[in-house]
Each structure stands twice: as C-alpha cells, then as structure tokens.
C-alpha cells in the first residue's frame, strides 16, 4: 500500500487536477471536455472519496499521521518556519470522508441540475466545484493554522465564484459579493489571530508536543513560557481564541455575521448543498473542533461559543418560520443547525459537536439536493405557496426529503435526533454544573427545537402535501435519475447515520456501541493531543466545566417532545388540502421576521449611518494630515530626486572629481576613527 502521507496528500490534489482540467481544457478546447467537466470532477471526487475512506480505515488501524509535506519558509534568524503538512487523525479523516462524499454526490446531482437544464458556463462551474472541494479537503487536512488559513480563504473565494455563477444577473452577483465581504470581515480577525499565534508560540502547528495548543497548556501550567506580550497568559489566550473565533463566526454564519448565507441561495442549488453541508459553513465549526485543544483552555471563549451558538440556533429558527421560499427555509435552518454545533462545542461537548457536524452534513446535503430536484420540477420557482402535492409526482424525492426533514426536526430515530440531543444533553449537564450562561444557551437551543420541528414540516407539507397550488406544480414530473440517486443515497444515510452514536441509549446499549465517541477517543500513537478524551480532561480541569449527571434519556425525551410539538402544530396548520398563511397570529412580529429582524437594514444603517460618517471624518483627517504628511514626503523626495539626479551632470570629469572627494571623505572618516588626528 502506498505511503500514508503521499496518499493523503493526493486527496486534495486529485480534485485540484480536475479543477485544472476543467479550467484549461474548458478554456482552450471546450468541445473536448465531456459534460463540461462533470465527468472529470466525478472521477476525481470518487478517487478522493476512496482515498479518504482508505485514510479513515488506516487511522482506525492506529495509523494517525502528522507529516510535513513542504517547508515554505525555513526558520531563519531564530524565527519560526512556515510549513505545509498533513495531519491525519480521527477528526480530519472523518471530515475528508464527509467532504469528498458530499462533493461526489453534488457532482453527480449537478449532471441533472446543470447539464440537463442546458446551463451555460459549465467548465467554469465544474472548475469551481473542483477547486472548492480541493481547498476544503486541504483545509481539513491542514497541519497548522497558517495552512488552514490559506485554504480557508480559498474556500471563501470559491464560494464567491460559485454563488456568483449566474453573474450576469444582479442577484447572484451581489450575493456573491456579500458572501465574500461578510466572511472576509470575520477572516480579518482570524488573520490577526493567526499572526498573534505565530508571534506568541512561534508555531501554528495543530498537533504534537510542539503544537501551540500543547504549548498554551504548558504555559498555563507554568511549565513553559511563551511570549504573551506582557499580558497574563489566560487573558492573552482568550484574546487569541476570540480573534480566531471571528473567522469562524463569519464562515459558519453565526450571529451577527450570518446575513450572507440566505443571500447565497442565489447560487445554483447543488452549490448551496456543498456550501451548507460540507464546505464553506462547515469550515468554520471544523476550525473550532480542530483547535479544540486550545479552546478547551479558555472557559470564556467556550462560553462565548456556546452563547453565540444557542442564540443563533434560536434566532435563525424564528426567521425560518415565515419564509416563503424553500431554499430560504433551508438557509435559516443551516444557520440554526450550525448554532447547535457551536453550542455543543462551546459547552465542552466535542464529540457531540462533531457528531452533529456529521449528521447535519448528511441531512442538509440531502435537503438541498431534494429542494434542487423540486426547484427543477418547478422550473426555478421556489415559492412554497405555489407548490403542494408534489408527493405523488416525485415519490423518491419525497421520501428522501421526508427522511431528511425528520432528521432535521430531530425525530427519533433519524440522524438529527441523536446528534442534536447529544448537544443539548451536554449543554444541559454543563449548564446545571455551574455555568448559568451555558444553561441559558441550552434553553435557547431547546426552544429552537420546537421551531425547527415547525418550520421543517411546514416546508414539507407545503411542498409535497395537499393539492398543487399552481400550474407548474400540477405539471411537475419526476426528477431525473442522476438527481434521484444521490438524493436516495442520502435519504438512507440520513435515517441511519445517527446510529453511530446513540448517546441517549448509553445506559441501555453499552459504551461499545458509541462508535463515534470511541472513534474520536481513538488511540493516536505518536500524536499527543487531539483525542476527545484529552479534550474532555482539558475542559474539566483547565476550563473548569463540571457536569451534573442528568440521564441522557430524560433529556432526549424532553427535546423529542418539544420537537414533536412543533411538528404537530405544523401538521394541524399545513397538512390540509388547502393550507393558508397563518402568519397573522404573530401580529407585528410577522413583519419583523419577514424582514429578518431588519438586520440587513441595520447593517446597512451601520455602514451608511455610522461607519460612513466615521469614515468621512477619518477621510478628512486622512486627506489633510496623513495625506499631507505622505504627500509631503513624496513631493520632498521627488524634489530631492530632481535635485539629486542633477549631480549626474553628464560630464565625466565632474564624476571623477566627486569620486575622489567621496574617497577623501571616507579616508578622513576612517583616519579620524583610527586616531590619526
């Protein structure tokens, strides 16, 4: 078998090759590119998936690896080196399987969504998908924060590329710009944090004894000293953690930087699936999981993560309640679900968070691909009030979509139930264990469960049940095979993937059936640090997150009941032949929700009303003082330049004269120094 590092390095390189093929062949000889590059992409992601599975199995057999692939900048002058490498541990092995798997299905689905619909710019589209996949895989395998940052940015760039696929229309173009700018705003903090990490620890490595989480731990224990710029280590690490979190909040669309994500629905639906399930948005929370050894040292940051997560889960869920477009509902559900993942990670539930990341990837990919199939059937009309009765017209999609919806709503035994419950249970135990803020986050998360059940099934009923409410819905035909197959595969997975970690049944089935937990705890020979067990110790010992024993079953029943209540309300209101809008019961809140709490308006106001005057003021200062100084300097140097170059008179004897004078001056300097005079 090939050497692990080589094989793993190939995981992102293969889709990258597909990207190059699509780009170059698509540019120079588009006719030679079968299916606009789709086949190359499918082949590449299939190879990546195979390699990822192989890496996964290797890690399972105890083959976790950390290796340096390339030294970009060697350590010189006692400073740090900048390197690129691969870190293959349970977390990254799991992530590459998810990413390449979802990406493969998205590629296949795109055959139906893009090719069969005769969309233009296919090479560009598939090149984007290839680069997107490649950068996300490379991000997942990154061995240090710098490398992660590079690919994090590349992921952001690719989502700009793909969201703006139909760039000739104003909507996608502006949505792409918005996504790019909002996430970039967050990334700015990440960049500052990265520089801070390098400056503090002299390394940005994730794993190993010389990694920065390990150094931070040692520094807190007083066993190592790092350059904290005169600040107390705990405070400084909190600052760094919060800075890095800025990037996470932007990418994972957490409050208050979530506004780009609903707009991003302007992109092709398969892209939305990829962005939401496995790449762009997942990158944020994945970074938190990757840096868990660092975050576990800083209780403040953990609490912030939990609070942001809980609040976002609730906040986004309320907005999803009233949306008319199917993809908008899904968009807000994504924000909400990533809120749960953040809640899980923030309350110290590493396994729970990663678990929800896994299940969410499955069912959200499913829901988007299903929605994509619906949208194609509806000829790109996304208004749910014009759908209805699609159950009979596209049964495969319906059943798969239903599976995904049950998972999203958290109904036993579908995937989302297990993972969401694991998150909530963990937050509850920690919250009761003396962390009131985490408890608050838990309560918000719990309320959001009801909302989730409601909006999910409102969507299902409005789309698939009842009578068709438009001509298009009446004439809708079944989806094509290359759309049905990925949806069906994911439908099955959404039903069963939760069984890898049946947390609420811990008491019943025994520890050995908690596959994911065992997996993440897994033995890591030669790699100190990134195991769930180690993280748990850190959370308890360093961050001081103690737990109170609460039966997982009780917690599970509570959330299930809440979820069912939401579903039940949706059932009574919308599972009727002629559903009507019930949003009036919300009163004035309805308008508020329709307008997403006026956040866009608020942010626009923030930009035009606050930042712009401020910028104007700064501009005045800039134009008068700073520019004055800069222009002064530059005009001085230009005048000086004009004078100085006159020294070069063109007459060679003046050169020799000045040369001799210069020599005499040098001689005088040296002889003065030498003590001749």
């Amino acid at each position, binding site marked *: 078998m090939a050497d692990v590092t080589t094989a793993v390095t190939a995981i992102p390189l293969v889709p990258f090759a597909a990207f190059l093929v699509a780009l170059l062949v698509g540019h120079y000889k588009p006719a030679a590119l079968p299916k606009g590059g789709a086949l190359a992409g499918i082949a590449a992601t299939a190879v990546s998936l195979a390699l990822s599975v192989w890496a996964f199995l290797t890690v399972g057999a105890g083959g976790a690896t950390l290796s340096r692939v390339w030294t970009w900048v060697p350590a010189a002058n006692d400073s740090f080196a900048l390197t690129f490498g691969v870190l293959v541990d349970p977390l990254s092995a799991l992530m590459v399987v998810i990413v390449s798997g979802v990406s493969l299905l998205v590629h296949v689905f795109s055959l139906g969504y893009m090719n069969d619909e005769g969309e233009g710019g296919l090479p560009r589209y598939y090149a984007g998908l290839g680069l997107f996949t490649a950068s996300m895989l490379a991000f997942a395998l990154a061995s240090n924060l710098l490398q992660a940052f590079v690919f994090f940015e590349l992921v952001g760039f690719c989502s700009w590329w793909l969201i703006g696929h139909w760039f000739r229309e104003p909507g996608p173009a502006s949505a792409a710009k918005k996504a790019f700018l909002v996430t970039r705003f967050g990334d700015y903090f990440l960049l500052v944090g990265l520089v801070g990490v390098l400056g503090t620890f002299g390394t940005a490595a994730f794993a190993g004894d010389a990694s920065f989480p390990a150094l931070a731990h040692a520094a807190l224990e007083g066993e190592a000293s790092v350059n904290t710029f005169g600040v107390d280590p705990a405070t400084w690490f909190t600052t760094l953690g919060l800075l890095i979190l800025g990037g996470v909040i932007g990418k994972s669309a957490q409050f208050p930087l979530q506004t780009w994500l609903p707009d991003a629905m302007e992109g092709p639906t398969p892209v939305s699936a990829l962005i939401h399930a496995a790449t762009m948005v997942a990158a944020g929370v994945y970074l938190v999981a990757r840096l868990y050894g660092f975050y576990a040292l800083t209780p403040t940051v953990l609490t912030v993560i939990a609070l942001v997560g809980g609040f976002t889960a609730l906040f986004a869920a309320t907005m999803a309640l009233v949306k008319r477009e199917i993809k908008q509902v899904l968009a807000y559900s994504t924000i909400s679900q990533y809120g749960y993942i953040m809640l899980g990670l923030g309350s110290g539930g590493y396994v729970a968070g990663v678990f929800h990341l896994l299940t969410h990837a499955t069912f959200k990919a499913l829901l988007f691909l299903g929605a994509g199939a619906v949208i194609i059937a509806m000829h790109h009309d996304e208004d749910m009030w014009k759908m209805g009765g699609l159950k009979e017209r596209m049964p495969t999609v319906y059943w798969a979509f239903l599976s995904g919806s049950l998972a999203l709503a958290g109904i036993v035994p579908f995937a989302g139930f297990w993972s969401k419950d694991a998150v909530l249970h963990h937050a509850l135990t920690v919250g009761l264990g003396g962390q009131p803020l985490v408890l608050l986050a838990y309560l918000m998360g719990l309320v959001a469960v009801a909302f989730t059940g409601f909006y999910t099934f409102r969507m299902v009923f409005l789309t698939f049940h009842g009578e068709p409410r438009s001509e298009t819905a009446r004439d809708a035909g079944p989806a094509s095979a290359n759309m049905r197959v990925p949806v069906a595969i994911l439908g099955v997975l959404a039903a069963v993937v939760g069984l890898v970690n049946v947390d609420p049944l811990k008491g019943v089935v025994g520890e050995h059936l908690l596959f994911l937990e065992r997996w993440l705890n897994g033995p890591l020979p030669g790699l100190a640090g990134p195991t769930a067990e180690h993280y748990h110790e850190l959370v308890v010992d360093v961050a001081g997150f103690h737990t109170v024993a609460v039966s997982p079953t009780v917690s599970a029943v509570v959330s299930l009941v809440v979820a069912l209540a939401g579903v039940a309300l949706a059932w009574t209101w919308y599972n009727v032949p002629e559903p009507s809008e019930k949003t009036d019961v919300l009163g004035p809140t309805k308008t508020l929700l329709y307008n997403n709490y006026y956040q866009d308006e608020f942010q626009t106001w923030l930009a035009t009303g606050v930042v712009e005057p401020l910028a104007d003021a700064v501009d005045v200062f800039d134009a008068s003082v700073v520019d004055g100084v800069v222009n002064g300097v530059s005009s001085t140097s230009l005048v000086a330049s004009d004078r100085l170059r006159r020294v*070069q008179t*063109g*007459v*060679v*004897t003046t050169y020799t*004269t000045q040369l*001799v004078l210069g020599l005499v001056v040098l001689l005088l300097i040296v002889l003065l120094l030498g003590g001749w005079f």
Partner: protein
Amino acid sequence: MVPLQYYLLFSAAMFCIGVFGVLARRNALVYLMSVELMLNAANVVFVASSAHYGTISGQVFSLFTMALAAAEVAVGVGIVLVAYRNFKDIDITNPTSMRW
C-alpha cells in the same frame, strides 16, 4: 637604506599628481597617462615594500600591474577611438548626451 616612509611619501606624491591629471586634463590620452602615473605610484610602493620585507611577491605584483596597465591602455585607446569616431574629438568632457 632609505626608510619605507620616504618611498610611501614619494609614491603618494606621484599618486596625487596622477589624480590631479585625472581631474584636470580633458584629453583622453593625457587622462590615460595620468592613470598610468597612479599605477606606477603603486608600483613604487610594491617594489619598495618588497625590498623592505625581503619578499618577492610585491615585485611580481608590480609586473602584473604593468601588464594590466598595457591591457588597459589597449582597451582604453580602442574606446577612445570609438568615441572619436562618434564625437569627432577626444575630449572626455565632450559626450554629455546622457545625464541626470
């Protein structure tokens, strides 16, 4: 035996005369002669020091200097000829088309 200092002062005087010629004369050939004078000032030091230290290396260096001087004149006269062809003069201050 004349002390080395005398030779040094003598050669310094030669060198300075050479420098004066370099700075003051505009005729390219006189310029070359002045440079020769500077080189020969160095030769005086080489030979005198060689005698002073009782080593032969300085004398050998002076031979190299002479050879170099000849080569330099060879190239130099060639360049002066090229300049003459273009500027119809061998005044080294004449070509000033490129400046500033």
